[in-house]
């Protein structure tokens, strides 16, 4: 099982701060595609991804138990 976190506009669009689904064995790109379709997310492509709080690329494969966060362009400061 994996915990998926959404922030900023993604959180608003999904309607949840996080969800739990099993995406072990899939790449980040595959999970983005799946979630974009499921929640009708237009801008997931422009989001960065973090696996266990470290930036990951679209090719990274998610393992069981990984926490995956989608990170829209940041605007702190």
């Amino acid at each position, binding site marked *: 099982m994996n915990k998926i976190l959404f922030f*900023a506009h993604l959180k608003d669009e999904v309607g949840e701060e996080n969800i739990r689904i099993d995406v072990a064995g899939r790449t980040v790109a595959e999970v983005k595609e799946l979630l974009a379709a499921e929640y009708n997310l237009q801008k997931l492509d422009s*989001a960065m991804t973090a696996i266990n709080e470290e930036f990951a690329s679209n090719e990274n494969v998610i393992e069981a138990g990984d926490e995956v966060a989608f990170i829209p362009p*940041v605007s702190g*400061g």
Partner: protein
Amino acid sequence: MNFEIAKEPINIQAVIDKVVQRNAGAITTFIGTVRELTKGKKTLYLIYEAYESMAVKKLEQIGDEIKERWPGAEVAITHRVGRLDITDVAVVIAVSTPHRADAYEANRHAIERIKEIVPIWKKEHWEDGEEWIGDQLEKVAYPTGKPEEKDLYE
């Protein structure tokens, strides 16, 4: 605890106190405040949100980058989250170094990096609506799904 996400107003002096050292001749601070007008549009207030645990790690990474590039530097950063009104303090960056040129440059590095790699977002509220603000550095979307290596790890 030199790197923090705060839910309450930031005590600027407390951030400065973390970087005081006997061999610093200079301390610079950057204080980011909520500005009323941006491109002629009037902001009422902001909401800042963070991926808190990762944000602290990324602030620590920025501190490490600075200590490597500017030997002798000490760094402390506190970023606030929640609702902020006009003139409220969103972020305080304090950097001490033996000599002053480094204190300015290292501090500037910190704020630029915060805007690249620290998972914090702001939602602007105007009289006629609200919006999550992204892409402040006017970069294109990351084609590989993450910042380039050089952006992330310098």
